[in-house]
């Protein structure tokens, strides 16, 4: 299958790559660009482990074709922390022990980031509603919801 | 002498006897002594000289770790049970 040259922006950097038209963004991120922070759980849009932002919108990267990112902005988990420190969401996930195996964590953090951009002071119900597209099998979600609410409070103050 | 409990699954070989006092300071000796009284029981418990893979021994409520070499106390309770694992 001939390859297509795609020019895009990932985590604020101009990136270009070659891919087949049948490759998902998830596959290209992980296998071709070495950005393995975005995880694969089901590859059919039902678990949210592959959540990224595309032009600021929360998407399952397994449902986006890599060629669709041409000329657009992709944000992945790798772009969140600065060299100096973790993002408040990342920090709160650690403080609240909101991860056990951690495989769903990048997806949850990206989804939570999108939530807090849209709604900086969500209620518990709003947090649960927004995150219902991300599956976690280890934590029972209790500490994840607490971590997101706590991060929201910290980010509000900042 | 230790008290050996004979489960419902071993009782066909013991004629219904469910508890018996047996001399022996290790499981190996106890099983050998059991065999003298209840022929055939050794084959149900041992394979190639050690405990069968589907047999574990509990002594005073604790799963034994040293197989047939496990020491047995004077008044210990001995049970042969299925091994447990986890998930």
């Amino acid at each position, binding site marked *: 299958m001939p390859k297509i040259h795609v020019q895009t922006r990932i985590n604020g950097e101009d990136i270009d790559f070659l891919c087949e038209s049948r490759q998902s963004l998830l596959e290209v991120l992980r296998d071709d660009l070495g950005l393995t922070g975005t995880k694969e759980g089901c590859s059919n849009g039902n678990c949210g482990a592959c959540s990224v932002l595309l032009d600021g919108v929360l998407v399952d990267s397994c449902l986006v074709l890599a060629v669709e990112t041409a000329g657009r902005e992709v944000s992945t988990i790798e772009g969140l922390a600065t060299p100096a420190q973790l993002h408040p969401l990342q920090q709160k996930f650690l403080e609240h022990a909101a991860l056990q195996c951690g495989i769903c964590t990048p997806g949850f953090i990206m989804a939570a980031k999108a939530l807090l951009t849209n709604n900086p002071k969500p209620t518990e119900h709003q947090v649960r509603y927004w995150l219902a597209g991300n599956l976690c099998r280890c934590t029972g979600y209790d500490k994840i919801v607490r971590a997101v609410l706590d991060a929201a409070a910290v980010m509000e103050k900042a | 002498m230790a008290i050996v409990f004979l489960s419902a699954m071993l009782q066909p070989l013991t004629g219904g006897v469910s508890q018996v006092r047996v001399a022996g300071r290790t499981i190996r000796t106890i099983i050998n002594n059991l065999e003298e009284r209840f022929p055939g029981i050794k084959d149900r418990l041992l394979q190639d000289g050690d405990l069968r893979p589907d047999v574990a021994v509990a002594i005073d409520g604790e799963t034994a770790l040293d197989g047939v070499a496990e020491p047995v106390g004077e008044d210990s309770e001995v049970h042969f049970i299925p091994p447990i694992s986890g*998930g």
Partner: protein
Amino acid sequence: MAEATAEYKVIGTRPIRPDGADKVTGRAVYGGDMRLTGMLHGKVLRSPHAHARIKSINTAKAEAVPGVKAVITVKDFPVAEDRMANLGEMAVNVKLLSNNVIAADKVLYKGHAVAAVAATSPHIAEEALGLIEVEYEVLPPVLHVLDAMKDEAPLLHESMTTTELGQKTDKHSNIANHLRFVLGDPAQGFRDADVVIEREFDTATVHQGYIEPHNATALWNEDGHLYIWTSTQGAFVVQRQAAEILGLPVSQVSVTPCEIGGGFGGKISVYLEPMAAVLSRKAGRPVKIIMSRIEEFEATGPTPASHIKVKMGAKKDGSIVAAEASLMYEAGAFPGSPVGAGCMCIFSPYAIPNMQVDGYDVVVNKPKTAAYRAPGATNAAFASETVVDELAEKLGMDPLELRRLNGAKEGDRRVDGPTFPRIGYLETVHAALEHEHYATPLTGPNRGRGVASGFWFNVGFQSSVVINVNADGTVSLVEGSTDIGGTRASIAMQAAETLGVPYEDVRPTVVGTDGIGFTDVTGGSRTTFATGYAAHEAALDVLRQMKERLARRWDGEMEKEFEGQAERATVRITPDDVTYADGAFKCAKDAGKSMAFKEVAAQMARMGGPITGRATSQPRGIGGAYATHIVDVEVDPDTGKVTILRYTAVQDVGRAVHPSYVEGQIQGGVVQGIGWALNEEFVYSDSGNMVNSSFLDYRMPTTLDLPMIDTVLVEVPNPGHPYGVRGVGEVPIVPPVAALANAIYNATGKRMTHAPMSPGYVLSKLLE
């Protein structure tokens, strides 16, 4: 957030886990993230039939596809021997294990592996799969435990005969094993009872549902050495099983455990590792295989569907005098369901003088079952705890009071014979009775409250730990327990406590089979208990060596001070004269002599060289675990949907080393139990095809399905562990199904005898 108890400095606090930054930034390397130079991608061809004979396999067309570097079938594997081998958690039959990894002459479930391809891209590998030609002779499938047990049922294994009450028989059957446990005289017990309840229950096949699919990367080198990288609960189990299946000495197999995205018992036995290895040998390059989510559902190890009968009898005063149960578990395509554990757990919250429990291990044309968090116990508790609830109702007693009256304690006997050591069941019942949740009345229509209890053994097994002292007084702790839920932290915390150093000074790393002594799986609620035990012992070994060094040094100094004097003989310093407390060593015979831990570390090179503490553990004194749960629900009378209003999980945790992760284990187990109770099941067509093999239709709980899960950590320290630790990970999944069934009954007046209690089922009961 740290609150050390008066007793401990580190144990009981809530520090950040050492691998935290790696996991929240996505940097941690899970098995699927593995990349090696020249790596190929593997895909597995799987049977479309639930039961069939393989007549022929033709791989020629697949081999010809450009980009395909190897195609394998069972012919590329050594012939598996029909014998038991000790390959990790428990003994397994090598032939059955190997036949499950790749089918021999028959396929026994839809999804059973028959061939595999390695190619330069996963897409090419998948294309090539479609070109492998397999000729099957389709056979009728057996898809339900009761059907499989009938005399006229088609047989999965022509040579399999039933082991009846411990004796091998000649009876060819799908019943692999019939177990029986008896205590006292159940017939008499039932005659003495004033109230007898008898019920039958069904549960469906349920999956562990870990979000990360199975994966394996293998490199079979030109020198004959096999390297495996995999997401596994136990690198040493993978090593042993792969060595056995591939006919290699254990020393020729090196397994590196990657970070793992959930296991719950389902990532212990090998599936992909031998496939990747054989592909690698044939292709001469590393090969990585990752399962798709459909493969996860069709071809890994779910937990058994079951049919269970329970009969319990009590006197008017509430004492339970007799109990009987018959547990029929689907083992899947090969024998070995956890029905034995189910039998031993089912009545274990109670002291009942007369009991009989029968267990049946039955094969069916579904994937071979594997462990799932307290394997066997949840099915059993659904049945028994529902009957206990009904007993309480008939006796006019509060359901927790009935449990309190009959609760098991130290010295009471289990149905399989042994007596309980120090256990904490009654403490959990008391805590539940006294909890504000239980005292708060539940008001409103269609609402109900249910309670249930559960028991799980926990295991001990083997662990190895090494602690290397660094010159700056920090230490490196090397262990082999893959960290699925925060155990790097809980193990490091125990070492820090024993060493008397801050938690931050202990750097734990998890290594593979080349780097540490044998270590059993992360599972069985054993890791904080047994690997923590080894860490504690390794820390004591470090202190012992430091005391020896100091004794030598101080004795030498005394030599100088007392040179030529008679008193010299009385002031020899031995290691027994060196004490350690609060980070400092002191000399009992000379108050002037002391040295801090950090100072000893700094002077190692001048005091005898490097200090490495080591220990292995195979602990006894495993404390069993108990849980008692309370749940409030609201049932929609029009749809049958059950909404959870409030959930409180009480558990005896021994001693919570890191309370956040203990709470996390409880919350996670509870939510898996909720999914099991309300929605999760494998739905099969008549031909044995699972029709809901995706997360859309295999419906696990989401954030929107749940409230916060309140946990109550009751601490009855386990006398068998230096810090009183009891395993906590598994028992939380045992009560929820029954607790919800009892709550739904309380809300609707209808007894639930089938799990899942999905809206359709609940509605059908409401309309009865």
